[in-house]
């Protein structure tokens, strides 16, 4: 279980922590790129659209640089041994997202829509809030194991967050999915994004305590370890919760995300493949079961199988259909390998949610296959750095939390990017850091903060060995 007691894993980074360099300067150098690349992209958009460098370039560059700088200084001071890649990668995605959101703000097609607002300034504000939360996490959370104490409070908090959109008068139904809450004066919040982190804390704390029982008390059947009936309780509960989210909030993505995260963490905690099998069977049964009576889900599946038919129905004005999926596919196709160049595509034809759920399509059209692959690889890198953090962590809680957060991040990217590219049915979710949306940006910065905290703890040099008692004179402690 613990890596330090298992000689077979010594060749990996788990042991390399001792005396490891802090890599803070590497992080700083990478951050320079993470700021400069979006600044160039920003200038690129302005030149393509108006033949001039956008007047906001300096402010934008300084803003992003300031955020990155603050993040870096705080990491240098409070998490000096943290993974050096996470902060630059998140900054780069955040910066590119801001550029593309600004680019879509300039679209005349989107400007005439009744719901149009200038999204880029708001997103910059959200990013600042996100980095503030990131700083807050690093300042206040000196050791991630503290979170263990809040296992059951986390469960309660997660349930409240997930149920909030269902409260009458608070929830907001936006185009079929009920995952938003409206706070007068503040706008809408997507509590699911925060619940993702809180629930990972609960799963990690719970599984750390129960994993022996879940792993050992089992019967062997056809090569699989079958858990005892009563041990099925927790997974059944999470499953039921996911189904409820799906039915009452009609949100396929969140539902899949929570259940997937739980199965991943359960598997890591127990090392039993049988849980994966159970998880897959249960999610398949749940999805098929809900799809049999939930028209919203059925319609999404239909749109997935036949995006062109969906497009035509929408064009004919049939209520409840959307041409967005097909428009997104055309955006990808029209981008080709190298893309049209920033500011020169027509991805704004997607219309509603072009800068949030469908933002990847703009990357696809304007930066092409090359750009999208780069973005996907950046996400892959963040996830793999997260899993590596889990590998390096020395405590089971930290391992579980890190893999839970990384796994949820990976699932979210897969669900939303796969949906936009029509690989899987579309679900209303945001692409982390890139898509327009305050809740998403803020919550994901907190997620990166926690991962950085865990990796700092993991890579921190082991405390110097306790002084040899024989070397010193025995001290007499008087009562």
């Amino acid at each position: 279980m613990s890596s330090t007691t298992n000689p077979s894993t010594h060749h990996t980074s788990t042991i390399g922590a001792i005396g490891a360099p802090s890599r803070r300067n590497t992080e700083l150098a990478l951050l320079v790129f993470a700021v400069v690349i979006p600044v160039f992209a920003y200038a690129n958009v302005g030149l393509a659209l108006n033949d001039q460098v956008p007047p906001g370039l300096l402010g934008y560059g300084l803003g992003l640089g300031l955020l990155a700088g603050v993040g870096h200084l705080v990491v240098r001071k409070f998490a000096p041994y943290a993974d050096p890649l996470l902060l630059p990668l998140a900054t780069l995605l955040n910066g590119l997202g801001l550029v593309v959101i600004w680019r879509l703000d300039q679209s005349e097609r989107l400007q005439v829509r009744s719901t149009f607002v200038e999204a880029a300034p708001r997103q910059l504000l959200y990013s600042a809030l996100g980095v503030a939360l990131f700083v807050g996490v690093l300042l206040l959370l000196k050791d991630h194991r503290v979170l263990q104490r809040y296992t059951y409070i986390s469960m309660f908090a997660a349930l409240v967050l997930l149920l909030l959109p269902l409260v009458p008068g608070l929830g907001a139904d936006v185009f079929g999915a009920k995952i938003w809450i409206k706070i007068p004066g503040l706008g809408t919040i997507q509590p699911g994004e925060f619940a993702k982190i809180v629930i990972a804390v609960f799963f990690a704390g719970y599984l750390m305590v129960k994993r022996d029982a879940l792993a050992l008390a089992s019967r062997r059947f056809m090569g699989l370890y079958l858990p005892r009936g009563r041990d099925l309780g927790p997974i059944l509960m999470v499953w039921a919760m996911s189904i409820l989210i799906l039915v009452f909030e009609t949100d396929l993505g969140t539902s899949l995300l929570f259940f997937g995260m739980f199965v991943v963490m359960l598997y890591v905690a127990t090392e039993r493949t049988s849980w994966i099998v159970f998880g897959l069977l249960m999610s398949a049964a749940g999805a098929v079961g809900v799809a049999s009576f939930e028209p919203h889900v059925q319609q999404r599946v239909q749109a997935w199988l036949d995006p062109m038919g969906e497009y035509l129905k929408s064009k004919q004005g049939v209520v409840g259909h959307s041409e967005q999926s097909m428009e997104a596919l055309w955006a990808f196709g029209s981008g080709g390998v190298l893309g049209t160049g920033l500011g020169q595509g027509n991805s704004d034809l997607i219309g509603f949610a072009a800068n949030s759920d469908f933002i990847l399509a703009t990357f696809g059209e304007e930066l092409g296959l090359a750009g999208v692959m780069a973005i996907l690889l950046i996400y892959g890198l963040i996830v793999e750095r997260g899993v590596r953090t889990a590998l390096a962590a020395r405590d089971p809680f930290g391992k579980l939390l890190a893999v839970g957060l990384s796994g949820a991040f990976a699932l979210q990217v897969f669900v939303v990017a796969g949906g936009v590219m029509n690989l899987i049915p579309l679900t209303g979710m945001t692409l982390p850091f890139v898509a327009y949306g305050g809740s998403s940006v803020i919550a994901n910065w907190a997620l990166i903060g926690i991962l950085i905290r865990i990796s700092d703890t993991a890579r921190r040099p082991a405390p110097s060995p306790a002084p040899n008692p024989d070397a010193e004179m025995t001290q007499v402690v008087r009562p």
Partner: protein
Amino acid sequence: MNKPLRRIAIFCGLLVLALLVRDNWLQYVMATELKEDKANRRVAIERYAQPRGDIIVDGKSITGSAKTEGSDFDYKRTYKNGEMWAPVTGYASQAFGATQLESIEDGILTGNDDRLFFRRTLDMITGKKQAGGNVVTTLSAAAQKAAFEGLGDKKGAVAAIDPSTGAILALASTPSYDPSTFAGNSTETDSKAWAKLQKKENPDDPMLNRALRETYPPGSTFKVVTAAAALENGLVDDVDAKTDSPLPYTLPDTRTELKNEGNIPCKDASLRDALKVSCNTVFGKIGADLGKDKMKEEAEKFGFNSEQFTPVRSNASVFPDEMDKPQTALSSIGQFETAATPLQMAMVASAVANDGTLMKPYMVDKLQAPSLDVIEQTEPEEMSKPLSEDNAQKLQSIMETVVQDGTGTRAQIPGVTVGGKTGTAQHGVDNSEKPYAWFISYAKLKDGSSPVAVAVVVEDGSANRDDISGGGLAAPIAQAVMKAVVDSKQ
């Protein structure tokens, strides 16, 4: 705990890999298909992103482009004298797509054609905007004007061909429409103008290109084809010799008498006399005697039963396949199920005028790159030889008699030899509806060359059967068109 962690790492890697594979599928494998999908609005945006190339007649463009505001399409098509030229150009509308030349040569006009790829790439490197090429037509502005104005308020069509090359000189259809009125995509003006032109709203169907896409019973003008069949098959050798033609003539295997128009001297009339006064009995008997196969063979040599691509498609004219003897006789005088487009009948006249050789009709002389370099030049092409030179000259001689002192006197042009044939086609059950007036003819200059062959059809002319006969209504239009061409040659 590390073993499952590694597996999770691999699992997450596979998720990303799946996305990468899917992305390659979309943006590489399927990219062209998605990009060129007709429903993809980018296709239309690109089409209207720069001024469209022009369609050119006699060195002058008959089209243009205008900058538009308030839409993602930058330019729209404009037309000069759109009503007159619509049967040639077709239309290119932001809202309703393109047809005919505008559609067929769209690649050249937008500059997207593969043959322009190299120039386009050069332009991209030098920073020049993409531009469209031009389509230079074979049409004659004078002939087209004569045809369009000759038709006037009447419903009908004109097709004129240069017999020696097959170049189309005039292609008019009335009532016509102005494609400028719906070239944009405004729901206010363009959609309304479009709706008004549809057959539902407008029973005259102004958007029908009658010269190419409407087939009419050719009536007596088809007797030229029957005469050609008689000469080619040796049934008649001397056009001035008496034929064995009884009057009254009863259709074979029936008791139905085939009648002539009025009391005309058709008994045993020679081919010349029979064509001059348009004897149904003589040509009906020739058709019945030759039989349907020989008649069909000759008709198909003239182009019947197949579509023509000029490159704009013309409907196939019909000479029926399955019929008995009396039906063959009727078909041979241009009735029963025989039907022809004006272009087809112009081809008949042009083959006779060109000493029996039918040239493939075409209306695009050349395609030009934006720099005016010629990308493609159409070479005249022989399509078939429905008549020997000898027989063609015999037929010319009797067609000239028709204009000299037969039914087609109103097509005469001083100083020019004109050969022609009138036609009055029945229409509707038992001739209940107004007939079609036909006239086909050619003009021959003193040097023996023939610069123009023309076919005119006028629908629903006057109520009086005699007056409508091709000689009265259609021949003057044909005369004007031929005169316009002849005058422009001199």
